[in-house]
């Protein structure tokens, strides 16, 4: 198999820009050919096409038919993933799909069926399975250095991302939908277990003008007994020097691990105005896309499958259901 032809479907999700840069890097390594972009926002489409010197399409079906890419990266708004994924599957095109893969379990299950039927590779963009810090953590846990996992306390804090992330129809929710699934996925990966029960609380917003929740606290019990928590809040103000965090305190019977995946940054204090920062840790986007290519070429199973995408989504949806019921919610939903 030679160079794989890639297209990116929508730059609605901010991660698309980083993925596109990775594709340009991989082009230089003769791994891929980045051929085209699609977007339903004309301005964004033009900007992306010009930035990366690729063809532009305002119709993704046409893009798939004309360019016949081997693989697509789906980075549209959460609720729009489903239609693009289904067409790609139908045409036998491999998919790397941004998280959360969908906004409802019905959509996620339909995606699973389409992936199974078509036999395409579908990888969920759980980029945290490719961060050196979290990968090393997986190795330390699996070798038994901290004994059995007892509890995991975690945060995926962020700023308010803006754009459509505050639109419940497109995002499927607010901070819970946006910032629960990465940590939920890491917990599933580390414990090799599924969530059994979810409870969540939320009372009022930090930013009262938002239509979606911008903070919440979630606690999870896994089937084999591990207790875990996720703070998914967009509780970082715009002036915060970094975007947010992925933090896990993992308490084992024989040891304790602190994962602070994006802590590796240099603070820059300008002569005036807010401090900023420069991150110097690993770029997991590169490793993730490179592994996606390997999975396609070697006909392997992705590290994070469509099913993993669904299971993490279910935990986020269970948190919403718990808020509604004001009680713990049993999984499966």
């Amino acid at each position, binding site marked *: 198999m030679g160079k794989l032809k890639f297209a990116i479907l929508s730059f609605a999700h901010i991660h698309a820009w980083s993925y596109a840069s990775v594709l340009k890097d991989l082009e230089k390594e003769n791994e891929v050919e980045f051929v085209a972009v699609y977007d339903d926002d004309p301005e964004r489409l033009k900007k992306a096409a010009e930035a990366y010197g690729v063809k532009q399409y305002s119709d993704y079906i046409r893009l798939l038919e004309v360019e016949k890419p081997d693989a697509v990266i789906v980075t549209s708004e959460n609720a729009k993933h489903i239609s693009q994924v289904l067409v790609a599957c139908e045409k036998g095109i491999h998919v790397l799909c941004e998280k959360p893969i969908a906004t409802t379990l019905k959509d996620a299950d339909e995606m699973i069926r389409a992936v199974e039927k078509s036999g395409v590779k579908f990888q969920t963009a759980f980029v945290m399975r490719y961060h050196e810090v979290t990968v090393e953590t997986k190795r330390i846990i699996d070798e038994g250095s901290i004994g059995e996992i007892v*509890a995991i306390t975690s945060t995926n804090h962020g700023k308010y991302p803006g754009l459509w992330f505050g639109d419940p129809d497109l995002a499927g929710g607010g901070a819970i939908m946006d910032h629960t699934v990465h940590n939920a996925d890491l917990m599933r990966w580390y414990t090799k277990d599924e969530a059994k029960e979810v409870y969540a*609380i939320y009372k*009022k917003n*930090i930013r009262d003008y938002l239509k979606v929740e911008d903070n919440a606290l979630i606690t999870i019990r896994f089937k084999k*007994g591990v*207790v875990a928590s996720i*703070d998914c809040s967009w509780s970082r103000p715009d002036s915060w020097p970094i975007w947010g965090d992925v933090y896990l305190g993992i308490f084992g019977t024989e*040891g304790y691990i602190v994962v602070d995946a994006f802590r590796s940054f240099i603070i820059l204090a300008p002569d005036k105005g807010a401090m900023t920062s420069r991150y110097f840790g690993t770029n997991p986007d590169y490793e993730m896309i490179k592994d996606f290519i390997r999975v396609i070429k070697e006909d392997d199973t992705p590290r994070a499958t469509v099913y993993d995408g669904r299971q993490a989504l279910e935990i986020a949806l269970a948190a919403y259901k718990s808020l509604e019921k004001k*009680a713990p919610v049993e999984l499966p939903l």
Partner: protein
Amino acid sequence: MKRGVGLGKVKVVVHGLGFIALNHHLPSLKRMDDVEVSGVVSRNIEHAKKVARDYGARPYSSLEEAIEKEKPDIVVICTETFRHKGDALTSIEHGVNIFLEKPITLRLKDADDIINTAKKKGVKLMVGHVLRFWPEYVATKDMVDKGEIGNPVVARAYRYVSFPPWSFKRWHKDLEKSGGVFVDLSIHDVDFLRWVLGEVEEVFARGATVYEDTTAPVYMHALLKFKNGAIAYVDGSWLIPPTHPFYTYLEIAGTRGLLVVDNLTTAGLRVYLKDEVRCWTPVPRDGYYLELRSFINSVKKDLEPAITGEEARKSLEVTLAALKSFKENRPVKLPLEEEVI
């Protein structure tokens, strides 16, 4: 019936000569010119004798005997939690003011007994919720009160300590004696958050006992809903290995800003020993000194103590609600209708 102590030295008896007394309360009292530690009490008289020599006090193996002989103005009670009620009532019945370590008791009824008896006898009672005197927590409270983060919305607090095996074996692992990590340790953060955010209306908690011979949770986290509309996550653990220093973390996000403080990145001093790492910010008068100083002043000047029994009872109630939620796996509303331990 003691009302104001007058000009002489304040006589103090310290009861319970464990970690907190030896490392904090006794050294703090020794630094106060207007205080005389006249007696120290331990059930182990040999231990009491040794400590008495260090502090120029008389040793006792019975609190009652110490009170009768020394006639102190104040008893500082640092015994194990399950002994608090008996020790507190003994002191109160003798008309002696008491500074009582946290948690006040393990049962609400016992806390009420102490509070009511103290009132009836006219003695002063303060419970050692030391964060209300701890520099970074005092500063945090001040920042929130001044509106620097706007209205508080979501808070997080961690408190992790690796347990000294000797103490753990003795009583902490027994639910009936310590209440477990949330009642014993996280009560600090609960009390602090109540001080800043007001009353809690509902609690949900999860935890783990981990060891076969342990009935007390050694790890627990709780989700708290406050009446003012804020929410908080409180995390307590005795599960960190001794290679990790004592750790506390606090953040509060509000409508106008976020504040974050933890004891490791803000430590003015880090000391690495062979088997221990200590990180802290030394100040001339630390929280332990200031809480005792505050109580002694309230006794001398006949003022209401800074942390009343009622306050301590409310913080206890929240931690017991967490324990109840852990046991019953459901959100628990306050006030509690019945005992949990």
